[in-house]
């Protein structure tokens, strides 16, 4: 198990190093921050002065090595857009908003998708199964921004039940969380349903029924426990997606989380923040996948022994 853990952690670190290179290269390929920072009528002197001030006159590899060295110490530089703050501070400040929204969306996804997937499998080809299929179909085919705007229009503008947008308490979170969760509910429902269908057809389930075990116990204890490995595998992607924030939903609902931050920093060509937020996303995804790998190995001994 220790060897397994060591190997997985090493792979994650190598991935992280590669990601730093990609992030740094892509962010610099997308253009010069001066283009976003300086006004249209900037003079050559002003351009030269700000270039020097930001250290953009140094060779690109020197900038990368400096970035890597500083990043290893937790220093990602100063934000170009949010003056007076370091990039790490900017990301750190946005994190609670994303964790709140992502956490609620994750909760909604699990609470809705798992029972729905299980029930759809148990009541296969019934009205309940059809409803679950429609929910899954809509969730995977409706664009998130469209769904967000429709929810906003119905529940905030027409009914006045929730605020339209902005950062605030639970009432501010419900619409964006539902919009974010719907896609994941769809994916998770379908995965759970197909995993359950496979398990419900297994010999040991038939045996349990023949032995007279109550149906509820058959479904939730014997079948669901064995089918759960499939949705658990998906949790890495699910948690990663929700906790790194949805760029689209956070923008539509003006929710100042890391997703909103990413798009705002990209638009403003705030390289230090873009690099920090993308690396943060990468670390979260790597961590989520590492945890899933460990869970997987714990659940299935064949994996940790290979």
């Amino acid at each position, binding site marked *: 198990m220790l060897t397994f853990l060591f190997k997985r952690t090493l792979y994650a670190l190598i991935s992280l190093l590669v990601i730093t290179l990609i992030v740094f290269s892509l962010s610099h390929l997308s253009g010069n921050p001066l283009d976003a920072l300086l006004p*249209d*009528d900037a003079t050559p002197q002003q351009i030269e002065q700000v270039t020097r001030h930001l250290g953009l006159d140094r060779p690109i590899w020197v900038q990368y090595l400096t970035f890597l060295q500083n990043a290893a110490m937790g220093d990602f530089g100063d934000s170009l857009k949010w003056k007076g703050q370091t990039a790490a501070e900017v990301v750190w*400040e946005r994190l609670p908003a994303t964790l709140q929204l992502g956490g609620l969306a994750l909760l909604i996804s699990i609470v809705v998708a798992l029972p729905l997937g299980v029930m759809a499998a148990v009541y296969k080809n019934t009205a309940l199964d059809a409803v679950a299929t429609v929910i899954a179909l809509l969730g995977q085919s409706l664009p998130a921004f469209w769904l967000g705007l429709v929810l*906003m229009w119905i529940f905030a503008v027409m009914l006045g039940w929730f605020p339209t947008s*902005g950062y605030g308490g639970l009432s501010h979170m419900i619409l964006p969380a539902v919009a974010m969760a719907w896609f994941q509910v769809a994916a998770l429902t379908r995965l759970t349903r197909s995993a359950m269908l496979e398990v419900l057809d297994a010999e040991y389930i038939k045996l349990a029924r023949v032995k007279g075990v109550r149906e509820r116990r058959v479904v939730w204890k014997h079948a669901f426990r064995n089918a759960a490995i499939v949705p658990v595998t998906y949790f890495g992607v699910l948690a990663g997606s929700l906790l790194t924030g949805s760029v689209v939903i956070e923008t539509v609902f*003006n929710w100042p989380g890391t997703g909103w931050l990413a798009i705002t920093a990209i638009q403003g060509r705030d390289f230090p923040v873009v690099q920090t937020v993308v690396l943060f996303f990468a670390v979260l995804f790597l961590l989520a996948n590492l945890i899933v790998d460990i869970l997987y190995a714990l659940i299935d001994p064949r994996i940790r022994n290979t």
Partner: protein
Amino acid sequence: MKLTRIAGVSLAVLLGTTVLTSAQTITVAMSPPSVETNRYWNTPGDFNLGPAMQGLVGHDPVTGMYDNSGLAESWSHNDDFTEWTFTLHEGAEFHFGYGPVTAADVVHSHTLHTGEDSTLIGVAQLKDVAVEALDERTVKFTLPRPQIDFLFAHGGRGSLVIYSKAQYDAEGLEGYDTRPAGTGEFQFVARNIGQGLTFERVENHWSGRDAEVERLVLRFIGEPATALATLLSREADMAVLPRELQPDAINAGFEAIGSSNAANQTAMLFNGTFLTEGDDKLDPTLPWLDIRIREAINRAIDREAVIDVLYDGRASILPVFGMDPRHEGYREDLAEMFEEYYGYDPERAMALMAEAGYPQDFENPVIPILSSNLAGNPEFPTMAELMQVFLDEVGFQTEIVELDWAGLGALRRAREARLFHPMRNMPVKPSAVGIGNYYASSGRPNVNYEDPVIEELNTLYAASTDPQEREELAGRIFQQAFEQYAVAPLASLSAEIMVNPETVAGWTFPGVTSAGISHFNLIEPQ
């Protein structure tokens, strides 16, 4: 419906919604600034601290003319406009007990705004300027060259906002980041990143003009549909909306309030038209180097349709980009001749193209039309599509080039923006600034058109300090730009904001800032 609302309100109360606000709080939904900071000199000119902070010079809310509603009570200049002396209002004071505004604050603010990290628009007007405090209330600016338009650097879209030296000495820049002491009719309460700014009224303001609104919230919303929803749900009392969404608000009972003067001019630029001999940045294959092609493009554009589609009919046709009745060199005769020179005439356009040998005699006949988004001008992508429709109709070969505004900025700085692209002049700047930005090499690297005639005239214009001579020279520059079809001027329009008439009775603002809105102290609540 009533029951559902009651149910909803109960639910909202249970969930902790706090939308119930005082009647004296006015919330304005607007686009977020490009840089969110309290340090004005670190922005490209997005002055979202306008309600709390001031420059030396103010503007009349109706005419937009400079007046002494800023921090300076009066000003004077020497004969050649190289020395400007400002006398500060007696009794002008900073918020939060930071004391009276003195000449030392002006000197300190100038140092901040012209430092190495300054990214301010128009800061060139303040560079290499010596600022001297003559006494507590008098400050003198000594300029390296004459600047007739020096007040522009201190007005609504100015490049110098006065910060408290006393606060800086006590708290450093962090003090400004946390709670900047301004001098306006509102004082700073809070900045919430990505959400907006909150201000509160200063009671017994030193100017004697207390704001009518107790609390002002500027709510930043990037997505226009969300801003509209915020207004329709009454979470915001006012919203700056793109024109295509304004009819939705008007149909729902909201009203549009416009600036009292034109706040913006729009045009399509023939960038790369560098006609001065020996310019190594000239691409000789650009189709619009031929004046007949520039005229044909102008003739192909139905400006009334453009105004209907893009501005819902609430704009007027612009005769010369950069020219305005409020500034030097305005030529009424050019406005009168507009129809004759630029009137919509597809047949004339096709005749000109045939005469020029288009497309067969052109190495590169394609007109690349830029489609780009610029905050505050959401109509630009539609404008590009409209241009393509008009140009295709008369037989031009076109292509849409998609590029973000920052990307265009990079090309312009390299003088390689060989595109037919949208541009705005907001607020409408003094003629000297407009001419430098669009028609003369003095505005390099960003200028889009240069020719030897304008170069000669502009050299004389820049050196002249005689008002009559300047008026004539600026007029001749605009005439040359007009006759040469240097750009495709489109529209002159006011800044508009949609308001809820149940909470806002009126607001007068002159349209002199980059955002268009200002004079928040004049918002009249119901």
